[in-house]
């Protein structure tokens, strides 16, 4: 039995904060602190050095993107710190802010609704903790719609693989989720990278970043 992953949670809504803490406790994480605003989040992280940070985007005092700003700041101080941002917005501009933050630690941007799928949520947190990237499928879906034109060149299967890849799944996980062989996944990914003019890359995080950067690019 390995040590449980330690977490600091920042969420201004007390109901959700309690719920999230309870859910993480049951999911085998250890919650070091659950705070309600960005300043407390910064203080808690600097004092407690958690393995993983989970924060809401919008928090008091003025309900702008303080949570996100705090996450970006924490990563600047500690590039290895994995951060998961929970949001009620699908908007990818927030994802962009997060991806643009320097750092080697994993990154997650999830819609809050995902929290209710307990098993999946726990798995996503572990993936980010291990240095992976997890961007919400809703956001990916929107980005895929945005870059419709060049994506025409991809087959339906390749598009599925691209969406999985953008969410940060490993080759093995993609193979398992789409019920195809590892070799097929490797071939699909090679084709996708070629069709989209992206450099081939085996590093999970850099690969996701490249795909997302491509998807975020100007439409048309």
């Amino acid at each position, binding site marked *: 039995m390995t040590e449980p992953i330690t977490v600091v949670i920042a969420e201004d809504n007390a109901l959700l904060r309690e719920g999230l803490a309870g859910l993480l406790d049951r999911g085998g994480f250890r919650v070091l602190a659950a705070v309600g605003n960005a300043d407390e989040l910064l203080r808690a992280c600097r004092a407690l050095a958690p393995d993983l940070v989970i924060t809401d985007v919008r928090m008091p005092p003025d309900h702008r*993107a303080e949570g996100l700003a705090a996450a970006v700041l924490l990563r600047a101080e500690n590039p290895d710190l994995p951060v998961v941002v929970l949001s009620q917005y699908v908007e990818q501009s927030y994802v962009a802010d997060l991806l643009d933050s320097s750092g080697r630690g994993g990154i997650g941007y999830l819609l*809050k609704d995902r929290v209710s799928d307990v*098993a999946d949520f726990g798995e996503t947190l572990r993936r980010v903790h291990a240095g992976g990237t997890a961007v919400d499928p809703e956001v990916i879906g929107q980005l895929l719609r945005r870059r419709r034109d060049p994506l025409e060149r991809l087959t339906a299967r390749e598009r599925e693989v691209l969406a999985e890849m953008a969410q940060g799944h490993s080759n093995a996980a993609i193979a398992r989720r789409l019920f195809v062989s590892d070799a097929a996944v490797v071939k699909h990914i090679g084709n996708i990278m070629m069709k989209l003019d992206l450099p081939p890359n085996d590093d999970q995080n850099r690969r996701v970043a490249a795909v997302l950067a491509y998807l975020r690019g100007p439409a048309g």
Partner: protein
Amino acid sequence: MQRAGSAPEAPPAIGAWRAVLHVGGTSLRVLAALAAVGLLGAPIWLALGRAERGAGAVGALVIAGLVLLGAGLPVIAAVAARSDWRAVAWLLGADPTDGPTIRLTEPRSLVRPLAYTVVLLTLGGAAAVLIAVLVVAAVVALTSPILVAAGDHAVIGPFAVDTAARAVVAVAAALVVLAGLVAVAPPLARAHAAVVRQVLTRPEQRLRRDLATTALSRARLVRAFDVERRRIERDLHDGVQPQLLSVSMTLGLALAAMPADAPGRADVLRAQQQARSTLDALRGFVRNIHPQVLIDHGLVAAVSELADTLPVPITITDRLGDRLPAEVETNLYFCIAELMANVAKHSLAEHAQVELERPAPGRVRVTVRDDGRGGAASNGRVDGGLAGIADRVAALGGSLLIDSPLGGPTIAAITVAAPGKEANR
């Protein structure tokens, strides 16, 4: 426009000395105008005084006098109207530049000044002469003690002041008269101001003022509407969404704790799915009410995100490069949102473009183009969408052009005033 109320402007308090100066100045101007009219009409008075000269000469003199008056009165009227308007503006502390436009070459612009001049020369003339007589009499009365002391005497109308006792009475009477004049100056000045404003303001000027007021109240309404939208958005975001999410989380925990074959598990699962689809719908509502991304990332980001959700491919071209003032961003966002929704709903377009640019410093232009079937703004839609856009554009003091021939393409262009660079708010 210093006030945006539609109520008639309450007379501002007028200082007594300011009123005295105004009344004095106006009286002098009236006397000057009377003198001018007297000079111009001189041939007529001559003719009337010398009836024995013969009909021909009298006729010629009268005609000459009338011609002189006809030519001179408009000039007098124009000068009187302009100077009195300025005097009244000074009296009320108002803007002197929004006066009537008077051109001698434009007879219509002379009607009101002439009417005003008639009032001025008759009523005003009577008042001015009375004031002048009283002031002169008072001055003489005040100097009478000096004259009496020097062995001389002063004559004020029917009264002769030739003894010390009479001189004292004269000085007292003069002081009373002057005090009385100072006391009646403010109401007199106010009455004059009212006449000037009433007679000289042309109806279209009043209309312009009303329009400015209307535009202001329109802008106020739009602003209040946006504040309300933000409040609703926040209530949903901080109240309803978390509560529903909490329900969904609790159901998730219950599901995680339930064995796969537990009775009722299917119902719990369905309940969770319902909560989730409600959350999805709610997210859409909240975004439409007021997108947070507009505040955090600005107009271009918000428009791009919105375009992502529409079925028609939309290209966004941003040549602004910086954030605009919050109010401009909000109004433009909702205008663009409406235009893009129209493209998606009605145009059958294959593709659309949104361009944001600065055609000139201090101005911002948004152009929405689509290759659809056209006929926007003419297909009898009554969804109020374009009216809403017009309201917002008016609130920004901008212009809206829609070119949408049947068969397309449709081009909608909104141009508004927007100050330059604005740092992060």
